[in-house]
């Protein structure tokens, strides 16, 4: 049975059809919630509350998007509510994330490891790397991580994301880019702290 049929049955009150939709989406929703919050307990609450809200509102789902997209938009609202008390600082402007030194200066400087991106899995054990990435994403201000995760974790287009977060395409693009630059910046610091000069250079 395809998603459209499952949704139609669920709307008619078929709990089994809804359960199939839940099972198809719960792992990804939990992963998204973990990335949004960086906290397993909060992520569990978000998953639970998202599915409960989905039941309450299933008759309002107009099927203009995939069921999963609708579900993630509920999940993001839940995450926003959970994180409302979290201290939020804005990210730096795009230009402040750009290197100010030339490649030659970087090569001769002691912090050249900052730019070693050949194989981060060698730099950190996989498990540790995952934890670092999850922490870095979770620490971003909500509006940036939301846009970033919808783009690269859920593979939605900029236009789809703009619709979900009620922002212009230009503003959505800017949020995704600023998040990406901030994450890159933080990961660079982790690699540098860990390996310093010991890492081979990119060039």
């Amino acid at each position: 049975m395809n998603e459209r049929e499952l949704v139609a049955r669920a709307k008619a009150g078929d709990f089994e059809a809804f359960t199939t939709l839940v099972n198809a989406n719960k792992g990804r929703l939990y992963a998204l919630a973990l990335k949004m919050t960086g906290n397993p307990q909060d992520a569990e609450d978000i998953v639970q509350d998202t599915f409960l809200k989905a039941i309450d509102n299933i008759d309002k789902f107009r099927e203009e998007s995939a069921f999963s997209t609708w579900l993630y938009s509920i999940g993001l609202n839940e995450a926003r509510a959970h994180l409302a008390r979290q201290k939020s600082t804005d990210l730096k402007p795009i230009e402040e994330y750009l290197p100010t030194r030339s490649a030659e200066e970087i090569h001769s400087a002691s912090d050249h490891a900052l730019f070693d991106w050949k194989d981060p899995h060698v730099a950190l054990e996989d498990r540790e790397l995952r934890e670092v990435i999850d922490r870095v994403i979770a620490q971003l201000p909500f509006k940036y991580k939301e846009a970033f995760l919808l783009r690269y974790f859920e593979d939605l287009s900029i236009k789809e994301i703009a619709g979900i977060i009620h922002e212009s395409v230009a503003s959505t693009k800017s949020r995704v880019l600023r998040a990406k630059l901030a994450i890159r910046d933080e990961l660079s610091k982790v690699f540098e702290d860990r390996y310093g000069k010991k890492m081979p250079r990119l060039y």
Partner: protein
Amino acid sequence: MGRKCLDYIKELNDYLDGDLDPSVCAEIEKHIGECNNCRIMVDSLRQTVKLCREGKEEKLPEELESRLNGMLKARWQKKFGRA
């Protein structure tokens, strides 16, 4: 990275995401070929996205898994009068 490269950053990002017009792609590729800083930026942004795409699915903790179905069933019964 000078003013010129700063002008390129948004296009570098579009280039990585495959959202760039082919004619502009050629210009970007030419610039990357000539500018180490922008090449580093492209490499590192590409790697950043690749890393963040990993772990797209997580297994639910057993405790949540076991209570979720019961909670959903109870809410379903409340809404539809059956489950």
